[in-house]
């Protein structure tokens, strides 16, 4: 029965056989890091500060069309096409949107109430590590090493001294409004997670290209 159950899980794992899901998360996380950098280091009225919406839209377009292009031109011709049940697609999109809304709303409330976010933000990296372990590392042994790097890196970031973490927010408008430490931790965690997901996705993609080839027609 276990073998049948594992067969039922295979199509889910196939979704990331080419590393596209990891690459997408990596691009998304690094874009958020870029947006945060731009927001912190530009004045609130500058054009750069207001351009973050375009950066976000650019990211969405890159992820959407990039994933589609890789699947259409590389994955499907090499190892086949799979269409997933509509019910899971219908459920996952609103669920992701709901989680995003809750997080954004929570952050807005926290910022408006001048709560000190240093502590919870310090452990945000561990959340990324858990997501990575559950979503990607379970299927392949070498990805546990990437999980280790992500988890250890997150813990190091969490214990870095305030002066180091505050460098990011130096000479910006942040210290007057937000905790410089929280801003630094948030940015470093996004960078670490983004790079880890991107590297992991790139290795997966490279291994996929190396071990597969399109069948002769």
């Amino acid at each position, binding site marked *: *029965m276990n073998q*049948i159950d594992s067969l039922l899980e295979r*199509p889910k794992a196939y979704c990331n056989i080419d590393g596209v899901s990891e690459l997408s998360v990596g691009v998304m996380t690094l874009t958020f890091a870029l947006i945060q950098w731009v927001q912190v280091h530009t004045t609130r009225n500058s054009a750069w500060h207001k351009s973050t919406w375009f950066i976000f839209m650019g990211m969405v377009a890159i992820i959407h069309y990039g994933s589609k292009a890789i699947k259409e031109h590389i994955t*499907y011709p090499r190892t*086949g*096409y799979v*269409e*997933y049940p*509509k019910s899971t697609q219908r459920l996952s999109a609103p669920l992701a949107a709901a989680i995003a809304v809750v997080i954004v709303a929570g952050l807005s409330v926290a910022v408006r109430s001048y709560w000190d976010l240093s502590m919870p933000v310090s452990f945000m990296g561990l959340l990324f590590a858990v997501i990575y372990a559950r979503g990607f590392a379970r299927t392949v042994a070498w990805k546990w090493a990437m999980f280790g790097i992500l988890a250890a890196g997150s813990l190091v970031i969490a214990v870095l001294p305030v002066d180091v973490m505050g460098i990011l927010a130096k000479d910006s408008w942040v210290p007057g409004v937000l905790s410089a430490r929280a801003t630094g931790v948030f940015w470093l965690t996004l960078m670490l997670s983004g790079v880890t997901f991107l590297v992991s996705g790139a290795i997966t993609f490279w291994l996929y290209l190396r071990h597969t080839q399109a069948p002769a027609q």
Partner: protein
Amino acid sequence: MNPQVRNIAELDRVIHEPGRLMVVALLFAVERADFLYLQTETGLNKGTLSSHLSRLEEEGYVEVTKGYRGKVPQTLLCLTPAGRKAFEQYRKKMRAAL
């Protein structure tokens, strides 16, 4: 007859064959998949996979649609409602038998 033995005796033989069981289990988890995907995942050769698919189609468990993806011919496969029901029954009986 012992109920466990009866469950084994009542197993759907069309699905119980290992090659077809792999195909049905893979298709159960997706909406549709193409021939190449099933070949990659099962490791069966074209001829063997084709014959299993023909048997499943004959039984009304699998629906085969031939078409094109761009200029490349593509054979799409999906489980019919009868195929889904048969696989669920098969799993239930296997669980009871083991």
